[in-house]
């Protein structure tokens, strides 16, 4: 009985040590240091007409990984509905459009509504009717990026 318990304890100890050793192997794996996104240093403002149900996009280039901030600054037109929002997104140009990786419905304002870290490469801001437009409008927006 005693011998049996001793063997069992030994087996558990061997197993524990073995697993601990294996775990140690994995814990010694290293992780590449992640670089911090560069601050947005370039600002581009743009304006475009937007039709009911319409979409437009604006492309910009980033030389390095950095922060992007998009501001829907103004919507002008006649008979604008109360609480008007537009879909604003950041993505990549693809085909004849811009495929957003992030998009929100937002009202115009002074502070960026869509932010993220992207790059390097060519990216785009896409703005579209969220379903609330009743007539064509003029959209003013800006994108700040590194």
């Amino acid at each position, binding site marked *: 009985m005693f011998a049996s318990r001793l063997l*069992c304890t030994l087996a558990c100890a061997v197993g524990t040590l073995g697993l601990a050793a294996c775990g140690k192997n994995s814990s010694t794996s290293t992780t590449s240091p992640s670089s911090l996104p560069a601050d947005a240093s370039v600002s581009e403002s*743009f304006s475009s007409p937007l039709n009911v149900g319409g979409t437009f996009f604006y492309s910009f280039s980033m030389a390095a990984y950095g922060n992007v901030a998009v501001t829907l600054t103004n919507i002008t037109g006649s008979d604008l509905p109360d609480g008007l929002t537009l879909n604003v997104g950041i993505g990549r140009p693809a085909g*004849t459009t811009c495929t957003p990786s992030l998009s929100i419905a937002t009202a115009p304002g002074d502070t960026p509504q869509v932010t993220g870290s992207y790059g390097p490469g060519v990216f785009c801001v896409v703005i579209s009717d969220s379903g609330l437009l009743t007539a064509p409008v003029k959209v003013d927006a800006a994108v700040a990026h590194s």
Partner: protein
Amino acid sequence: MRMLVLALAVVVATGCNKSNTTTSPSTTSTTPSTEYFSGTLSPTASSFYSFTVASQGAVSVTLASETTAKVGPAVSSPIALGLGVPSGFGCSVSSSADVTPGLNAQLTNPSSAAGTYCISVADPGTLSADVIFVVRIVHT
């Protein structure tokens, strides 16, 4: 019980050995991709199409077809074909040519870096009516 100890030791040792296995580096060969950009071009108008080069390699662009209708006679009016990078509301063209449909690539870049590029088509001032075009883009 001794067998149990032995078996457990073997299992643990085998598991540990697995973490020491090495993988030989694999070589990757990139197969070119073909994309088609088609649409209708009106007099004085232009449009563009963006595509992504996954790894450095050749890009070739061919105006493959230009007709007055989907099933209709070919048109020989030149179209301004450009290759560049999306910028702002358009395509910032770095190379261009006024071309008519052909079988051989009219624009080529033998070594384009990975990234996003665009093809621009525009009326160089020769169109008198809408035309339907097809542009073939081959890239890595």
